[in-house]
């Protein structure tokens, strides 16, 4: 048990280190944008009619702490970031944590739902495909997997919208109906959300499903040929029981491990799909922040949050795997 705690602690430290490296990258990127917050604040004041001088800018810099050395500012940024505090966006002039708040959790839930959908499809279908010799099934799965790669989610979203507009006259965009947009949470609002959210969930899960299918099938066909499966079959285990209790359990490890990368893939598609489907969640906000207004604080916060969710998921799967898989558990607790 002590060993297990040590394993969890090591993993947690590793996750923290990853996040710190990422935060350094993100923070340096934010710094690279020409012009800082002080200049922007005063440029805004300038448009309000008051004249500004170089001294004003220097004063504002001192007030915002921008005159500190790079490492100091990075340090304070990361300490705040771990507490969920990202300061103010100097373009929108609002607190970033307040601005993101619900939107971030909503997009994260949508992404996790797509991930769940992807694996809910991929695991059973992949296992069945690996076990069967049906050439038609295997070939069609191969084509679907390749399409998942060749047809990026945003093209899929465009195509679905194209068909929806041509045949149903409805673009299927947005997350809420108009009457629910600003309403407080209720069951009615939840159902309304669900009736809109299935499309983004499906589209975001699309390429992840294709990849997961490929992974599950490959792992299963590797395992099915092994001797312990033959031995189990010789003992009289057959059918679904044979498949699920023997090779499927062995193939589980790498599949659980691939969860983090699939979430990464889904986040990749999120901003663009959000733009096409007019979802005003964190993804679309990222494009807004970058493409329209060059708002580096907001963009940095979003990228950091996305990465933090992936790192957290990776940490969770590592621990989960240690709990689930006796081989991994044995190797830790020696």
């Amino acid at each position: 048990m002590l060993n297990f705690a040590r394993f969890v602690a090591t993993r947690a430290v590793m996750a923290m280190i990853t996040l710190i490296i990422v935060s350094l990258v993100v923070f340096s990127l934010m710094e690279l944008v020409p012009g800082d917050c002080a200049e922007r604040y005063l440029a805004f004041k300038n448009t309000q009619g008051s004249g500004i001088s170089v001294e004003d800018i220097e004063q504002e810099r001192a007030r915002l702490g921008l005159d500190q050395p790079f490492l100091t500012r990075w340090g304070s940024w990361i300490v705040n970031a771990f507490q969920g505090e990202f300061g103010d966006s100097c373009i929108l002039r609002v607190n970033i944590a307040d601005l993101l708040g619900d939107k971030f959790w909503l997009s994260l839930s949508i992404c996790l739902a797509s991930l769940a959908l992807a694996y809910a499809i991929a695991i059973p279908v992949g296992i069945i495909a690996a076990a069967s010799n049906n050439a038609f099934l295997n070939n069609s799965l191969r084509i679907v997997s390749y399409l998942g790669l060749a047809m990026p989610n945003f093209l899929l979203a465009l195509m679905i919208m194209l068909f929806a507009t041509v045949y149903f006259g409805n673009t299927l965009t947005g997350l809420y109906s108009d009457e629910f947009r600003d309403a407080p949470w209720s069951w009615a609002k939840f159902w309304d959300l669900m009736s809109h959210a299935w499309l983004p969930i499906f589209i975001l899960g699309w390429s992840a499903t294709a990849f997961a299918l490929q992974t599950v099938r490959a792992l299963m066909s590797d395992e099915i040929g092994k001797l312990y499966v033959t031995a189990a079959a010789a003992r009289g285990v057959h059918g679904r029981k044979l498949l699920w209790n023997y090779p499927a359990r062995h193939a589980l490890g790498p599949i659980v491990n691939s969860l983090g990368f699939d979430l990464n893939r889904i986040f990749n598609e999120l901003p663009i799909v959000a733009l096409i489907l007019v979802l005003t969640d964190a993804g679309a906000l990222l494009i807004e922040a970058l493409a329209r207004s060059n708002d580096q604080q907001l963009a940095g916060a979003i990228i950091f949050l996305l990465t933090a969710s992936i790192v957290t998921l990776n940490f969770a799967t590592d621990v989960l795997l240690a709990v689930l898989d006796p081989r991994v558990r044995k190797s830790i607790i020696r």
Partner: protein
Amino acid sequence: MTTTSDPTEVPQLSTEDQKAKEAYFTASQSQLIWARFKKQRAAMIAAIVLFVLIVSGIFAPFLSPYDPTIAGRNKDYTNGAPQIPQFCDKNGCTMRPFIHAVERERSMATNFRWVTTINEDVRVYMTFLPKGDDYHLFGFIPGDRHLFGVEEGFIHLFGTDEDGQDIFSRTLHAVWTSLQVGTIGVFIAFVLALIIGGVSGYYGGWLDGVIQMITDAVRTVPAIPLFMAVAAFMPPEMTAEERFFYISLILGFIGWPTLARRVRTHLLTERNQEYVLAAQLCGASPSHVIRRHLLPSFTSYIIVDLVISFPYMVLSETALSFIGLGLKDPVSSLGVMLQKATSADVMLNYQWYFIPVLFFIALVMAFVFVGDGLRDAADPYSEANK
């Protein structure tokens, strides 16, 4: 191969078999790979498709009837439907393909709006190798002949966009743009991966640990949001060419971690082999060992990895251009062309905006199949399963 004995000891082999066997044993690595690659139907078809696409990309200025930029626009046929050459119409058949003339008018009857009508009684015949817009093949060979055109007016195989630019011409040029961006991006990523993965895999130990940690951290950041963040720094006053190189550069700088990991894994397994030890004992420097002994041992794997990572570069560029952070208008690129396609107006009325998508799916699929085929062909142990 089931038998490894000398062919001369097996007298029952016919001379043809013997020749085949000799050819097998004396074949070079690349000949073996090619022989295995040829056996895979899907990969061969994909290779042909890929070849056709690459050639049509390279010769895009010649193959496309018009200039892809605003200079080649047909201002009388904006948002025009595709014109398909035909041999027959209600007035009979001819040997030469033709299209029907397009007339544009604005009068009382049309409520003073421009209305385009097709006059089915007037035929415009296609011509081959007509003189058209000037272009520079490969960037320096000047020319003004195009593969096809029409006697007068314009022909738009895939229709036109809202500025009257020919979508067919733009598609071919966009294929070329994608290939260029992908090549530069893959090349930069490859050089970085080789250096970083090479150092990491060759030296191992704590250096490897640190480099792996950084690589993994970079890999956890979702790539496209990161692309967006980096691309947003491009000053808006950049020229199209500068933008193009900047985008390729970003793609390369963000795409290296996966490749670097593969290089490292290859190196880690190879560096404990005897031939490396022999070279080291002879006093070879590390860089010499890496370049002359280790890299050649897995060149084929690296080529496969490059082919496989190519479509990701192309797709990332498309996504970036699509949201307006990548290439900008004078350059033809799928992302740029699709920017205008999201409006309901286009979706309902001008579906031919989406024709280029098919080309890109074909391009990406071809790369994926060729990459898969190459991977199987480059693996000397794959024959056991065949």
